[in-house]
């Protein structure tokens, strides 16, 4: 005879197992999504333009994290071809991490810093012209 | 066996120094002592910890590991030069801008934190002829 308490306990344990497995197998996506929305919050809600730029940086790196984490393989190593002791290349695709997302993200990082440079130059210019970097004060200044 | 024990001792003491650095950054009363704790403790703990890593690598002696150990040694050397220099630059900048420093006053014996010691912060000892 299985008591109802035992059934509930087993169901609870199963649910916790499911949840645990869900988190463990998808946590990189979760991390990227949480950081994405923190960055979005920073870009939209915060008044200060510097905070908006920092929000943009957080947003960018969250997307890069998402993209690179797609190409990870269990048991894989750095995508640089290793050689056997008699100079033959060891070309087993399952042993190397996926190199294609890395290529795209390399480009994205450097373009990201270029965009950051332009954003900071615009920030200095806005400070010079309007005298402030708070969004509401800039809007008031522009309406004058 | 003895190399393993040495590695464990090195890494644990590196971590201990790092915890001490963190506690120092949080608990010291003013800017100068905090940066001092950060600079010294950071350098020492990183050096000791990476030294432990070097010994760990050198347990099986071969050309490969010797090369990697040499590179790690270069990293230790670089951190040893660069980190105290950065600390010096930060403190120098603070000194130029007359960041107030903490002095002990008899009415506030035993308290920590800037807020309690606000009135004992003074710029009294800056030389007048510091080039501005």
């Amino acid at each position, binding site marked *: 005879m299985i008591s109802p308490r035992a059934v509930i306990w087993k169901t609870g344990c199963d649910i916790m197992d499911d949840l645990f*497995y869900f988190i*463990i197998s*998808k*946590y*990189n*996506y979760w991390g990227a*999504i*949480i*950081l994405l*929305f*923190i960055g979005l919050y920073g870009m*939209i*809600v915060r*008044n*200060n333009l510097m905070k908006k730029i*920092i929000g943009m*940086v*957080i947003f960018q790196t969250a997307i*890069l*994290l998402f993209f690179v984490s797609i190409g*990870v393989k*269990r*048991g*894989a*190593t*750095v*995508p*640089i*071809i*290793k050689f056997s002791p008699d100079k033959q*290349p060891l*070309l087993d*695709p399952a042993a*190397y*991490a*996926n*190199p*294609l997302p*890395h*290529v795209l993200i390399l*480009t994205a*990082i*450097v373009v*990201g*810093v*270029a965009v*950051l*440079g*332009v954003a*900071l*130059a*615009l920030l*200095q*210019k806005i400070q010079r012209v309007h005298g*402030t*970097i708070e969004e509401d004060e800039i809007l008031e200044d522009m309406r004058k | 066996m003895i190399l393993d024990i040495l590695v464990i001792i090195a890494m644990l003491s590196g971590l201990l120094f790092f915890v001490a650095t963190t506690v120092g950054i949080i608990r010291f009363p003013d800017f100068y002592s905090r940066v001092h704790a950060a600079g010294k403790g950071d350098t020492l703990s990183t050096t000791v910890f990476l030294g432990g890593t070097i010994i760990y690598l050198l347990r099986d002696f071969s050309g490969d590991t010797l090369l990697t150990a040499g590179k790690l040694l270069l990293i230790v050397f*670089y951190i040893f*030069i660069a980190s105290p*220099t950065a600390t010096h630059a930060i403190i120098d900048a603070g000194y130029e801008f007359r960041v107030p420093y903490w002095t002990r006053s008899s009415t506030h014996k035993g308290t920590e934190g800037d807020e309690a010691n606000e009135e004992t912060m003074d710029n009294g000892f800056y030389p007048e002829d510091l*080039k501005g």
Partner: protein
Amino acid sequence: MTWDASLLWQFDILVLIMMVICAVTALALEGLLSSAIVTGVYSFLICLMWTHMMAVDVAFTEAAVGAAISTVIFLGTAQYISRWIKKDRSKEQGIKQLTIVIAVICAVMMLNATRDLPDWANPASPASTHLSPGYIEQAYHETATPNVVTAVLADYRGYDTMFEAVVVFAAALVVMVLLRRTSHKHRKVLHLRPKREGRDTVLRGAAQSIIPVMQIFALYVLFHGHYSPGGGFQGGVIFGASFILLALCYNLKFSMNRFREHLVLWCCAGGVLLYAGIGAACLGLGWNFLGYAALADLLGISGKMARSHGILAVEVGVGITVMAVMVSLYYDLASGGDLEDGL
């Protein structure tokens, strides 16, 4: 169900939690200098995550570019803007608070949608089984480059890299156009800095011992991009950072006497010209644009080695451009445009 975790998920979750804390702190701090430093810490943490995920080229680039250069230009810009945010946050009410509600709803929906995404680190996921095994197997035989990322970056996806070099070049030009001015009359520096003649002995000694080694290391990273993590971007950024270090340890003028502004512009343009020139040379010899095998009979070597040397040449071009762009960004941003006095 079993979870065969040969990747250390505990480490990753810890670093992710620290990153979330850093992100929230960077957005919540009142002082802008502190926010800039915390953003640098955030970049270092994500670099750590990528090293754990075996994405070493990406981690290298992020450490050099994201953690170092972007922190320096944040700090350089912070001299010219007000350094504290306004205490009064009443303007962030109303419709902006609605954004938070919508963001939370969207986040929950996206988190639910991850149920359909492939498991993390699964070797049989579609991203790892459609196209990339072909690249891993063919890259060494066709281009004689063990570093598959460099081979794909400079050979198979060479167009992307060329336009990326053009984008950073354009960014340097835009920053120069926005900020450069020559008159001092309108200079409104919010926080007066004391004038310095040069730095003191400690900084000069450290600069003298570190900068030459840094530049040699940058050249090593550039030329060893075929065999180790590295390549054009990382080498160029480290080389540019050596000039920024010179400007930080001495004066901006000191660094500018050694790497003048018009030479910086020449290097910016020259790197892109080298890259596109090699592509045009391949086109002129009868092959595709950026098809390096055209250089085989020109140089008298096999097709594989021609592609390897072509990759090296375009990496040199990218490295020159990125170096000059980082230096130019620092010159313009840290001096507020008039190139008189830096950080």
